């Protein structure tokens, strides 16, 4: 309503901005609009809710939308710039964005940083400059946070492979750890991180001050014949990683100074289906998508995106969700999808909701009944995350 006053006067505009500061800073939202008067204000967010999902825009589109699975409504947006990875603080005290920005969009000076956002008003709190990071989309394990929330690990490929260690408490970059031949990180409670390697091993980097010692497990998968999806799941509570391979092998590993890697077993066999293999021409149910697995920590149920096809179709949109009881090593339910999807995530509460999305549409299901709760258009076609979702 202020145009007539402000139009055509920079001085007036300045004052407008000043006013704004006042109004926007108001702690309590104004009462419901009435026909006589309205004042502008900015909403604040409550503490992160168990049924929220963080829905990343599709490739080349910035922004991660927060949606409430109970209402199907958008709550706000986190500034994940085009080349960025987002990580949730284990205590939900911050939203972290590891990002790369040029001073002139696609030219100028490159700037790599971890940007820290307040979860209540979604305002930028700090930028922590650091060396380069890998530019790639759709990866949830290129930027991971230690279980105590104090350290961030940022994967880099230059094309030499390394990891930036960022002190999130002091908000400063600490050091770079070389990690030849490995990628896809998980925090290691023994003080550092672990990663999957091209030789089929699990690498563990234990950081002691400025020095890091890297050890490798015995090979337990074939990185070129039957790769493990690098968007695997890590459970902070159980300190356990759950891996899934192209053919459908599930492997769990307890992460520590010396990770203990369990037996691999076939998700197809767990469903009474012939195990997947790498043979050409052979058609079977196989896992696929860009974020093909989600774990409900408390119940130990793994939800896996599956499709029917030949081998080397690991990115194919999925047509079924398989509900795996990890303890029993049984697929307890199979849910067909009306529309193929590429990402899946599940909330971590006692009444979990499943989020799946395609490039254009996001669906919310009850994880126990698979009853459809909501269908949202343009919510975002990228990675999904939930509170304590990693």
């Amino acid at each position: 309503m202020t145009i007539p006053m402000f139009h055509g006067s920079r001085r007036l505009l300045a004052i407008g901005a000043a006013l704004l500061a006042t109004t926007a800073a108001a702690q309590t939202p104004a009462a419901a609009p009435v026909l006589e008067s309205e004042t502008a204000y900015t909403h604040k967010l409550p503490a992160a809710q168990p049924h929220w999902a963080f829905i990343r825009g599709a490739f080349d589109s910035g922004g991660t939308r927060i949606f409430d699975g109970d209402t199907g409504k958008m709550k706000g947006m986190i500034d994940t710039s085009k080349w960025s990875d987002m990580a949730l603080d284990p205590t939900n005290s911050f939203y972290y964005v590891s990002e790369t920005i040029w001073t002139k969009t696609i030219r100028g000076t490159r700037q790599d940083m971890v940007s820290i956002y307040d979860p209540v008003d979604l305002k930028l709190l700090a930028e922590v400059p650091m060396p380069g990071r890998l530019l790639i989309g759709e990866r949830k394990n290129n930027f991971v946070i230690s279980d105590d929330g104090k350290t961030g690990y940022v994967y880099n490929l230059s094309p030499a492979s390394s990891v930036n260690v960022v002190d999130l408490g002091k908000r400063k970059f600490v050091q770079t750890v070389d990690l030849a031949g490995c990628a896809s990180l998980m925090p290691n409670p023994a003080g550092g991180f672990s990663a999957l390697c091209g030789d089929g091993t699990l690498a563990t980097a234990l950081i002691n001050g400025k020095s890091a010692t890297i050890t490798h497990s015995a090979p337990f998968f074939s990185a070129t014949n039957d790769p493990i999806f690098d968007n695997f799941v890590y459970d902070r509570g159980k300190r356990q990683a759950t891996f899934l391979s192209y053919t459908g092998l599930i492997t769990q590993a307890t992460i520590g100074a010396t990770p203990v890697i369990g037996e691999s077993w076939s998700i197809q066999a767990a469903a009474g289906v012939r195990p997947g293999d790498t043979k050409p021409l052979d058609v079977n149910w196989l896992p696929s998508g860009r974020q093909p697995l989600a774990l409900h920590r408390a119940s130990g149920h793994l939800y896996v995106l599956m499709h029917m096809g030949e081998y080397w179709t690991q990115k194919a949109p999925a047509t079924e969700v398989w509900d795996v009881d990890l303890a029993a090593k049984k697929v307890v339910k199979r849910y067909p999808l009306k529309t193929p999807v590429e990402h899946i995530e599940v909330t971590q509460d006692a009444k979990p909701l499943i989020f799946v999305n395609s490039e254009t549409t996001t669906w919310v299901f009850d994880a126990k009944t698979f009853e459809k709760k909501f269908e949202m258009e343009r919510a975002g076609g990228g990675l999904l995350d939930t509170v304590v979702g990693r």
Partner: protein
Amino acid sequence: MAGFDIDGFGEKLLRKFAGGTSRRSLLTRLGMTIVAAPVFPLLPVSRANAAKPDRSPEAKTAFARNAQTKDDTKCDYWRSCAIDGFLCSCCGGGVSSCPPGSEPSPVSWVGTCINPDDGKAYLIAYRDCCGKPICGQCGCDNTDRETQLYVPQLNNDVIWCFGTKSMEYHCSTGVLVGKAQ
């Protein structure tokens, strides 16, 4: 000069409010006014710019005939008669409030919309919320009495994020200013 003098326009209006006080003290007062209750006689302006040609309830546009007052997340919500953009009420904000982390622009474009409940015309200030990437939800483009860039306050394509910390456009609100008659 002969040209349409928007500055002069605002100037006149200001003096009107100011009751002849100096520009400075006036603005302070004006500031208070806005924070407290952003309603003051905009009629001269709305008449001159926004109201013509057909502000009367009798002469309804297609939009006005089909507008509703119940759901402010739909493009046919009555206040949205001249909005082009994404409705903040679909982005974590409200019909007149900004989503978390975004900042309401102190300036705006205006529309004159008819409330189907009372058939009266109201002046709506479309204030963009700024400083977040584009919301992308509930995109609307209504054009009642919307004109071109040379009458900027009646044009709905301008990014109205003037005087905000970031000029990035997130979404648009429709703030009720008051009756247009």
